[in-house]
């Protein structure tokens, strides 16, 4: 068990800045998810920790050791690859204990440890099969077993669930979370699935274009996204983002949208000195914070019903507001009754409103 620290780490492939000036510190036993869209540098970051890539600049520490230039084998890590990378010519038992074989452990001791680990991962009955003879979920567990078998300091996961079907994925997710808490090992987990990150992580690091744009506990990142990018990436459906213009007078501040005007009361305090009159801003509203109404209110936006999608415990109601679409999650046994094209209003509480500069940065 150990902490993992990045200090100004960059990895450039020619002119591609896969990871750029990334600094963070992950404490002992923590579960951190690296979250971001395709190509943002998640895998590269993980491979830098594993030693499969060498940093262009910066410094990486595991525990109290600098590992920036160490070989993978000297870093004491366990890694689960996206394709599981099980060796097709070896039995499951041999696959699981390969790290022990490399360390010179005898056959009997290896078998014993394989049985131990396999039992705790519920694959003990598969030990003598080959990877081609077991299911995807079982392959995933085998791969996890191989990563934990030598009790490494740090676990690395590269999208380990992406090859599983939806149902199995949920099961495997709970299982991974349970396992990590049971073992208490520092884990770094790469995913582009925000729900997975929210569910698993102690802290989420959201990456964009090779940088970490925000790092914090899932709920903090969810509730106070640092940029519109983060706001848009977390949540399903994502946060509604609307272009507005600020009208600032001595007494009051007004947000003017295409079909609505919102008067900001006490909140105007927080805008002072940060924004200026006439500035274009972005207003953000989470779908679950919107309620449907037939009448306008001082905190509402008007639009025409665009689509209603019942999902069981909730329904997604999408309104066309000017040129943009705004989605609300309406909870309740019955989906709201409204016809496409009808006028409707979405209400919200003022403290639920997020404000961002046009550049995307959050206004506190």
């Amino acid at each position, binding site marked *: 068990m150990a902490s993992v620290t990045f200090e100004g780490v960059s990895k450039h492939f020619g002119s591609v800045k896969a990871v750029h000036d990334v600094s963070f510190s992950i404490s002992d036993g923590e579960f951190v998810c690296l979250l971001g869209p395709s190509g943002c540098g998640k895998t590269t970051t993980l491979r830098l920790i*594993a030693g499969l890539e060498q940093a262009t600049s910066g410094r990486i520490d595991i525990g109290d050791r600098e590992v920036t230039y160490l070989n*993978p*084998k000297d870093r004491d890590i366990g*890694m689960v690859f996206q394709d599981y*990378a099980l*060796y097709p010519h070896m039995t499951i038992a041999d696959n699981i204990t*390969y790290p022990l074989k490399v360390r010179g452990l005898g056959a009997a001791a290896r078998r014993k440890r394989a049985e131990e680990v396999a039992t705790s991962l519920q694959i003990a009955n598969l030990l003598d099969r*080959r*990877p*081609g003879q077991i299911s995807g979920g079982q392959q995933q567990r085998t791969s996890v077993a191989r990563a934990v078998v030598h009790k490494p300091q740090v676990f690395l996961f590269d999208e380990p669930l992406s090859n599983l079907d939806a149902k199995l994925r949920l099961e495997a997710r709970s299982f991974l979370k349970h396992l990590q808490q049971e073992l208490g090992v520092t884990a770094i987990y790469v995913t582009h699935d925000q729900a997975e990150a929210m569910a698993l992580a102690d802290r989420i690091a959201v990456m964009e274009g090779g940088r970490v744009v925000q790092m914090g506990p899932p709920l903090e990142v969810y509730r106070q996204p640092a940029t519109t990018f983060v706001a848009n990436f977390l949540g399903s459906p994502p946060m509604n983002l609307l272009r507005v213009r600020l009208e600032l007078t001595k007494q009051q501040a007004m947000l003017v949208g295409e079909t609505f005007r919102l008067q900001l009361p006490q909140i105007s305090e927080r805008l002072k000195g940060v924004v200026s009159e006439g500035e274009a801003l972005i207003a953000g509203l989470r779908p679950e914070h919107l309620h449907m109404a037939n009448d306008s209110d001082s905190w509402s936006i008007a639009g025409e019903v665009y689509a209603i999608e019942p999902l069981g415990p909730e329904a997604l109601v999408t309104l066309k507001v000017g040129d943009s679409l705004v989605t609300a999650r309406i909870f309740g046994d019955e989906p709201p009754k409204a016809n496409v094209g009808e006028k409707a209003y979405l209400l919200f509480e003022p403290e639920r409103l997020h404000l961002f500069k046009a550049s995307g940065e959050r206004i506190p």
Partner: protein
Amino acid sequence: MRLVRYTLARIVFYVTASLFASFFTLPLLWLAFAPFNEKAALSVTVPDSPSLANFGQVFKNTFAVRALFQNSAIQALGAMLIVTLFATLAAYALSRANIRGKDLISYGLVLFSSVVTGTAAMVPIFLLIFRLGLINTHLGVILVFSGGLLPAAIFIMRDFVDSIPRSYEESALVAGASPWRIFMDIAVPIVRPGMMVVAVWAFVNVWGGFLIPFILLRSPEKMPAAVAIYSFYTEAGTPIITLTAAYSLLYTIPVLILYLFVNWRYGFRFFGGIKS
């Protein structure tokens, strides 16, 4: 109407195919029957009273027997080992190392291979082997064959190595294995079918090669079977058909056995890919 045309087309197809097939089967049939026929001629006839007399005659020719079971074996096995081993190592390096223009090297090699052991190169090859003092040695023959076969062997092996996902090696790296260990534990077992194909192919090439040993060897004690078969010719230069037939059959058997073994054990294929 369409049915008639379809049927006619099929008939024409099968007749043509049969003609071609018999054209190629006749020599094989001859090889199956003639050795057991004391009066064999160049026509395919089922012997009235099959006998092993021809083989008895052949085994009296110690020169030819040694050529087949000793010299051909040494040369073919030697080149087979060298080609398989070096092709695998080279293919691994070409596939995995960061060498600029490595694809160019690979394709260039294949072009070269036809040149190196081609007849046109015989004079320089002879001079080279002569200067190395390897004329009239098995080693000289083995090296020249290996040099000629390696490029294509590397090319075949590269396809097999390329089909191993990088993540296999990376996971072994993370597990703590050294590069040599990874090569032996992960890469070799996975590309073994390819190594077998290359081995058989190299063996067959040397086994059947005539020109190189004929030119590089001097003493009859070192000649392989492909050359020794001429000892079953009369002074006038015509083959004694009965003996040539028997010797040819003996000559084919090791190759057949090797092929059948590899095919049974690994399956014969010329491309990579993981069968899990």
